[in-house]
């Protein structure tokens, strides 16, 4: 046996699995797939943590959660005690515990990963604490006169707003849609992230004094110049909202949509409910194009709406950008994968509705700029894939709405906002972070960016003598 941390012997017990809803059952509902740890499982899993002195797990956390400390607190004093530590670093722990790609972050660096029964299930423990603790959000500092505007109520904006509010700043968040939460409410499906969980987190921010103005499109309803005039600083976390399409024939046929459209109709507008007013295409044979997390969300959503779903991706399984867990869940739910396959044309009937797709087979050639092997078309491999709905999930680019109305905003050729690692843009008082700055990434990276910008904004306000 090896000695770690305090020198006690190491238990080699295997990682505890999170209970999930059976695939056969869950494809018939939109309830959460992963059910979360029971108290018994949570304590058993927490006791697997070696409480390493150097806490390698923390280097994988974009918001710097003191992981071994909160786990130790969970063992000592339950969820309430753990929450005191967790909530100080993470503004949306119930969200992160569910949607963070922990296998590439904290859990990647866990010393138990290779030989000691697998990494501690840090994400599942985070969720357990967030779901089961009484609200013990850190106290708000003394009120300051300074005012900051936050554009967008997604993970970047909410995280920035929360840190500023705790420091006593008056924060107003502007949201274009009628509901706060950004991608957490319009994008990520109910079965991965229940909207009641998001609402609870947002209520927590409101309790910190954050003012959220929905139905406000910055660049249209309120102009950036007005915000820079009225507020001491502005943080833009407007996300990467503009969907990419394939650019092939037939893409404007009825029944072809972006993953954003399908997910917005189903998640934000609740189109999966029988009594919903907002309609949604309910194809019998749906083809989803793409293999990222959004493609998995779209495929699994279409499956729950009653479709047979085929996912088409031009590279092989090894290159699929989605989390392994999402790919596995999709497969368990009966999603078929047509890998090394690329659509070349979408066909429609006389009414203009989709009735099939022509695809070609691909082979992997030399690595391209992204380091992934470039797919090349296999000559003469064309084939017809019958389908009555196509969902395109090829990624998104930043929405140009703010840039168009505020040309002083510097953007890259890709449309992302130019800013330094703390989100400072060349325009004084203007900060940006999250997908609007990086292009489409993850919830937690956006939260990390919002947090760093909040820190930089506080530094600037202090320097200018605007806060005590």
């Amino acid at each position: 046996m090896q000695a770690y941390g305090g020198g006690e012997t190491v238990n080699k017990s295997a990682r505890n699995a999170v209970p999930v809803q059976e695939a056969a059952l869950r494809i018939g509902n939109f309830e959460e797939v992963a059910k979360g740890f029971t108290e018994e499982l949570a304590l058993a899993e927490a006791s697997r943590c070696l409480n390493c002195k150097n806490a390698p797990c923390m280097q994988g956390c974009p918001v710097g959660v003191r992981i071994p400390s909160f786990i130790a607190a969970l063992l000592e004093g339950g969820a309430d005690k753990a929450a005191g530590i967790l909530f100080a670093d993470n503004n949306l722990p119930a969200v992160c515990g569910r949607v963070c790609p922990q296998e590439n972050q904290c859990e990647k660096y866990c010393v138990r990963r290779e030989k000691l029964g697998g990494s501690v299930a840090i994400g599942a423990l985070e969720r357990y604490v967030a779901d089961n603790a009484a609200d013990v959000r850190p106290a708000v500092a003394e009120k300051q006169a300074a005012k900051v505007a936050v554009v967008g109520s997604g993970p970047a904006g909410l995280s920035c707003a929360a840190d500023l509010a705790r420091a006593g700043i008056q924060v107003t968040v502007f949201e274009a849609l009628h509901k706060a939460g950004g991608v957490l409410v319009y994008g990520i499906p109910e079965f991965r992230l229940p909207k009641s969980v998001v609402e609870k987190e947002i209520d927590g921010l409101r309790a910190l004094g954050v003012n959220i103005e929905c139905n406000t499109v910055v660049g249209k309803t309120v102009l950036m110049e007005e915000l820079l005039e009225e507020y001491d600083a502005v943080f833009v976390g407007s996300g990467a909202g503009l969907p990419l399409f394939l650019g092939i024939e037939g893409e404007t046929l009825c029944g072809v949509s972006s993953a954003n459209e399908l997910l917005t109709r189903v998640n934000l507008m609740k189109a999966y409910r029988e009594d919903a007013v907002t309609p949604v295409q309910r194809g019998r044979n749906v083809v989803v194009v793409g293999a990222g997390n959004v493609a998995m969300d779209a495929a699994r959503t279409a499956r729950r709406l009653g479709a047979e779903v085929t996912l088409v991706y031009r590279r092989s399984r090894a290159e699929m950008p989605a989390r392994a867990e999402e790919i596995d869940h999709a497969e368990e739910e009966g999603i078929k994968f047509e890998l090394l396959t690329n659509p070349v044309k979408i066909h429609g009937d006389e009414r203009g509705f989709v009735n099939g797709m022509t695809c070609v087979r691909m082979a992997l050639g030399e690595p391209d700029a992204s380091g992934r092997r470039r797919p090349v078309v296999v000559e003469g491999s064309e084939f017809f894939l019958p389908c009555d709905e196509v969902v395109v999930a090829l990624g998104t680019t930043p929405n140009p709405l703010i840039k168009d109305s505020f040309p002083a905003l510097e953007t890259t050729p890709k449309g992302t906002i130019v800013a330094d690692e703390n989100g400072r843009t060349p325009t004084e008082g203007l900060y940006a972070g999250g997908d609007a700055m990086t292009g489409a990434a993850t919830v937690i990276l956006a939260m990390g960016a919002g947090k760093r910008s909040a820190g930089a904004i506080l530094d600037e306000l202090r320097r200018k003598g605007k806060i005590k």
Partner: protein
Amino acid sequence: MKKYEILSKRTLAERVNEYVVYAPAVARHARAGQFVILRTDEDGERVPFTVCDYSREEGTVSVLVQEVGYTTMKLAAMNAGDALADFVGPLGNPTDLSAYKRILLVGGGIGGAVIYPQAKQLAAEGKPADVVLGARNVSLAIYTEEFARFADNFYLITDDGSSGKKGFVTDMIEELVKKGEKYDCVFAVGPLPMMKAVCALTARYDIPTVVSMNSLMVDGTGMCGCCRLTVGGKVRYACAHGPEFDGHQVDFDEAIARSRMYREQEQAHICRLTGEVRR
């Protein structure tokens, strides 16, 4: 006043109501040609409507609503004093006809609501436009008094000849052009088949034509792509790039097909609301 309160409602034609909504934040930057998205209630769908008038002083924005589907029927049941759940805007780009000198505004049915603020603005700029307003019958013709006041020449044409001339807007446009009227721009707004017919006609006479596309939308800010259409062989978003486009470049057949995407589901909804299916 309540947020998004309906301050007044007046019936302009059969099943066509004008709502003046209290929305100072929207009124502040609203301009002719832009649109808003509203929801009637917490369970409502997001539906776009063109801004047909606004007052920055009063903090109001007016929209014209024709009862055609679930949400518009729900709106028809709402009255002054009621409040909408959501009202966001101004979205899309404002109309820009500054490059043109002699403009013919063409409105079909409720499309009159979109050309009305334009007629008013052009009159204020000292270059009043000619206006052709088409309607199925005289009881469906809207803003006739206002057009008579703001237009240089106002022509009303009805399908059944119940007032003005009998025929379609295209008949009227052709008559004017043949008479020797020289327009350097036609701005046409109405049902898709009407805009298609107008564009086919003006293309023959080589008159630049601008149309306003009333595509289906969800978010209205460029996020979902539901409103996409093909213009000059390129895919464009009505919400972000429009709603106005060069009519001679728009693929109307595709737009017409896309406008019918949810027709069956829509009828099921109406059925639930009224116990009947309207066609």
